């Protein structure tokens, strides 16, 4: 027990230390600060997908829709409503999360492949809206003309736009808050019922757990996290485009979660690191970078079906 806990805390400390000092050690390996911010944001997205996939056992293939809605809402807020980064984030999180929660209510009775199909369908609806609504979203050209604003604390300001390192720490702070909240939920009794549903839905139902309601809450929470990640992503690039809502991006998030280890808490972050960094490096070398990611996924699914972190776990959890 103590040894386990100690190990757990040591791992946590290592993860946070690595993240905290990332702007300083990344350049040694050819990384750069903006890449770090992107990894964190996509990692948060993958962890949000995994919140549902790994801990409730429900596979959504349309989560990019909430990610993209968050990005558009954040961008449009900054462009038209108010020049405030926190307000943009709040608006993005609310719009994406509420849309996800509302549609989630229609989804919770479906299971397995049917659930995944309906999530794709809903996701594509938003994709085509973003693609066609030229006057609002800029269509296929994407949404431009907004930029992240300095954080104003009255006495002093933090310039997020021109200082990449400040922005990285801002993203890291947001990431830490979201991940902390996620861990808190998973550790709560509600989080336990999510795992119970994943393990044996019928048994959970016989125990008196309102399964549909709990899946809906888990789905809605996951959408809020996803929309938060999407809003951050709009700030990373100062740009949003319809591909952020496309199901292929949903697929990328699922790939990150599966690659990293979908039943582990930190696995998706590791998956996102591998995915994003590989994409960044290999795509500079060859245009066929997708083949390499594809090959990696095939190898992982064949030999390490529990992902990177899953294979590190001792057998007793198997």
């Amino acid at each position: 027990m103590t040894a386990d806990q100690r190990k757990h805390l040591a791992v946590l400390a290592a993860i946070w230390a690595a993240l905290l000092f990332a702007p300083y050690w990344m350049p040694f390996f050819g990384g750069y600060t903006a890449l770090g911010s992107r990894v964190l944001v996509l990692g948060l997205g993958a962890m949000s997908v995994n919140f549902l996939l790994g801990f409730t056992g429900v596979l959504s293939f349309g989560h990019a829709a909430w990610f993209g809605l968050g990005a558009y809402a954040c961008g449009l807020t900054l462009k038209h409503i108010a020049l405030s980064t926190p307000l943009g984030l709040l608006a993005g999180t609310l719009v994406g999360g509420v849309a996800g929660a509302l549609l989630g209510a229609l989804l919770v009775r479906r299971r397995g492949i049917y659930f995944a199909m309906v999530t794709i369908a809903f996701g594509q609806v938003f994709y085509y809206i973003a693609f066609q609504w030229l006057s609002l979203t800029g269509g296929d050209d994407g949404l431009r003309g907004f930029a992240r604003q300095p954080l104003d604390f009255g006495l002093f300001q933090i310039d997020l736009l021109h200082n990449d390192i400040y922005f990285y720490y801002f993203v890291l702070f947001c990431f830490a808050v979201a991940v902390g909240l996620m861990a808190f939920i998973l550790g709560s009794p509600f989080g336990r019922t999510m795992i119970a549903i994943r393990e044996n839905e019928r048994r959970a139902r016989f125990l008196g757990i309102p399964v549909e309601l709990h899946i809906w809450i888990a789905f809605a929470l996951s959408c809020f996290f996803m929309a938060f990640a999407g809003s951050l992503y709009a700030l990373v690039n100062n740009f949003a485009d319809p591909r952020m809502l496309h199901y292929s991006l949903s697929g990328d998030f699922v790939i990150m979660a599966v690659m990293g280890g979908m039943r582990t808490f930190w696995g998706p972050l590791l998956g996102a690191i591998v995915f994003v960094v590989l994409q960044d490096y290999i795509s500079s070398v060859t245009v066929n970078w997708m083949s390499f990611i594809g090959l990696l996924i095939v190898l992982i699914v064949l030999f390490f079906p529990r992902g990177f972190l899953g294979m590190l776990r001792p057998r007793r959890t198997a």
Partner: protein
Amino acid sequence: MSKKRQSLATLDRRTFVKAGGVAALSQVAAPFIISARGETALKIGVDEPLTGTYAAPGKNEVLGCQLAVDELNAKNGILGRKVEMLTEDSTSGDAGTAVQKARKLIERDNVNLLVGNVNSALSQAMAQVSNEKGIMHIVPGGHTDPITGADCKWNVFRVCNTTRMEANAVCGLLFKTYGKKWHFITPDYAFGHTLYQGCEADLKKLGGTVTGNELTPLGTTDFSAYLIKARAANPDVLVVLVQGNDMVNCLKQISQFGIDKQIHVAGTQQELESVEAMPPEARVGVWMFEWYWKQASGTPGLDAFIATVRKHTGGKVPTARNWFGYVTVHAYALACEKAKSIEGKAVAKALGGLELPPEVKLQPNKVYFRGGDHQLMLSAFIGELLQKGDGDPENLFKVNSIVSGDSIAPTVEETGCKMQMPA
């Protein structure tokens, strides 16, 4: 309780050790990076489509840039500094990726000049990034008007035509030759939208009518539904505005359906990359090229340019895209030499108003960057497609006239550009 305290103590020690280690490492890191900066060559970051529907023009622009870089390095570089070129695949239509790559080139590689893109929407998205970072940016081949119009920026220049210039170059001729009822097939993004607006305005002025406009998403492979609608509308001319592989697919299907036997097929911008990828029977209609390799003999530097490109492409002739890339890098080098500096604002000032020398412009008319909107005034080569090569298997276009850029471009005021240099 004691357990908890113990584990907290472990956390502290481990964090401390790790943090200490990383902090120690960072002490070594900082001077290492700074020492590397002074020795770097002048860097040109090229962010162009190497995959997807615009892969062929994208790769040709990259080749054009590379030829110019080779020429510069063989002489004196730029201001005595070697020139290094970094290439990234922006994809053909994914603006998010193009933005990401532009940031990578600027933030990680510290490029002095950003080059790109073939795709108009991607060019606009990249221009926002380069402007935010204050980096010189030349758009070799993205045509949509706002880049050097309503959305113009002090650091952004463009080599290829605007969509309005393309429309002005051929609409009159199309109207006169083929008739007044037009039906459009338009790519559904920035380039298509502004090109359609330009053609529509010109057509209205001439007294013609539009029977319909089919908006097709970039990367469409099956045009049959659009073509059936176009045929049912019974226009005089079917105006094809899509580009790249989309153009190839569309014209192939037009000839398979036999539409070219019933309706005249034409368009504005046409490119050698697309024409060569088409079956001969699909090569029909009146078009404009933005640069064409077969010109009157005696054009200075042209034969040498053709020979160099042939050497690099296994015998293929240069296309307009090769020329765009070539002009992009040479224009930047000329501006740096003129300004005697590589500092962004000085170079931008020098490039505004710069006239291209004969060995770079490779055509008869005067070619220069307009200072007011940073648009290159280049000629339009207007003529007809040939089904079979005339004299050379790649001479697939008969040039009827070469019109100077000044005569087809709207004035700076009409473009809506209000150029503002930073303080």
